[in-house]
């Protein structure tokens, strides 16, 4: 309970600092900047606890972003990829001649898309599997060769440039032991277990390093927001 009192006092101090700056500084005259600033503060209030301000901001965020998504899909998919080629530019008519394939290239995916709506029926709901299978199967097909290139070839190639140095030795040991850690079909006992253990150490080094490395970038995000609040909104700093 005592601790909570301290926290409340702390939050009040922060609030007073902001109000003080609001009086002292030259706040922005743009209502849009005010909206952005208030929403920023609403979201920060979540750090203390869930409250009505955060709830408002969260629900607004969801609503606005879905509305934005609808607009973008409407424009980029329905208008540009279906409506325009079908009714306006008529890509399937070239020099007054009718071509079947360009028409099918619009109609087939549209029909497949419409099958998505079969979920609203009781009996034909299984039809939804067709567009899903298309998206999943095709995505899987695209990913197979490019995964080989990007994940396996690229990294193997870079590991294979070996020089006689401790660094190079550490590199190859690290890669091999990490790979060994991911062996699934053998129990991690004896030599395999020991190697896999070294692999875990390497993994932990990597996790620690990327954690420490990311801190700076995350803090600079907060600095960016602070700059917005103090400079663009309150105008207390020049």
């Amino acid at each position, binding site marked *: 309970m005592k601790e909570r009192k301290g926290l409340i006092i702390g939050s009040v101090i922060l609030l007073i600092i902001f109000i003080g700056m609001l009086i002292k500084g030259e706040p922005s005259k743009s209502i849009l900047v005010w909206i952005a600033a208030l929403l920023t503060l609403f979201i920060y209030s979540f750090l203390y606890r869930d409250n009505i301000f955060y709830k408002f*901001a969260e629900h607004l965020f969801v609503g606005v972003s879905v509305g934005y998504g*609808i607009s973008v899909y409407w424009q980029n998919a329905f208008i540009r990829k279906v409506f325009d080629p079908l009714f306006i530019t008529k890509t399937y008519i070239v020099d007054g001649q009718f071509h079947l394939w360009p028409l099918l290239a619009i109609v087939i*995916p549209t029909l497949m898309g419409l099958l998505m709506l079969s979920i609203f029926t009781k009996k034909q709901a299984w039809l939804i599997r067709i567009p899903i299978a298309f998206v999943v199967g095709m995505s899987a*097909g695209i990913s197979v060769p490019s995964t*080989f290139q990007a994940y396996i070839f690229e990294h193997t190639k870079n590991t294979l440039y070996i020089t006689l140095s401790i660094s190079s030795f550490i*590199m190859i040991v690290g890669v091999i032991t990490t790979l060994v850690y991911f062996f699934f079909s053998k129990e991690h006992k004896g030599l395999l277990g020991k190697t896999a253990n070294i692999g875990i*150490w390497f*993994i*932990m080094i990597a996790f620690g390093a990327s954690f420490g490395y990311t801190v700076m970038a995350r803090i600079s995000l907060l600095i960016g*927001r602070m700059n917005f609040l103090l400079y663009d909104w309150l105008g207390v700093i020049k």
Partner: protein
Amino acid sequence: MRRKIPLTIAFVFGIVMIIQFFIPHPVSRDFYQTMLDWRIIVIAFTYILAVSSLIRIHINKVRRKKTGWGFSYVTLISLTVTAVVGVIGGCFQPTQITTWLIEHFNWQIEQRTVLMVIFTYIQIPMGATMFSLLAFFIASAAFRAFKARNLTAIILLLTAFVVMLGRVPIGELITKRLPEVLQLQNIVEWILNYPNMAAQRGILMGVGLGMMATALKIILGIERGYLGGGD
């Protein structure tokens, strides 16, 4: 029937897309482009399902007066307003209506469309603020988790500590007098370039194999989890 058709479709399109990768011919290139367009169109229709799911949940909340139902109005209203503004007023390019309004009422819109104004002053600041919460969370996670409980935890803690220290000017000052190899920023760079890179490569190679296996199992119809069980 209910399984055969989808599995065949997944198989055919999967194999065709793999083959396509090896053919630089324009026919194959155009086909690839068409497939990507198809995917966009199909996903656009799925968006209808998604939005209807969201709307139904919030309408249900309002109807059943579940806790916090008042906020569902916020979502529903802001969704409708933004969508109407975007569809009628234009997304990135203003439609004729917007142009007329701008001229008639002498508006000053820096972002060209009303939708982009909403995007710039509501969605972007809120997104950036959510993103910046990470500054707080990364601190509390470090405080809580980086404790020398056992050997692996010590390794994690020490590397994070050293790398973090090496990123601020004070870290450099501490080791300024040492030989160059032992200076903190050089040690940090070495950690990043060798042991860290080694583990990352190991993980990524494993991930690559896992992804390949999963993708191939889907194409070959061995893995059908994504279709749901049953017939």
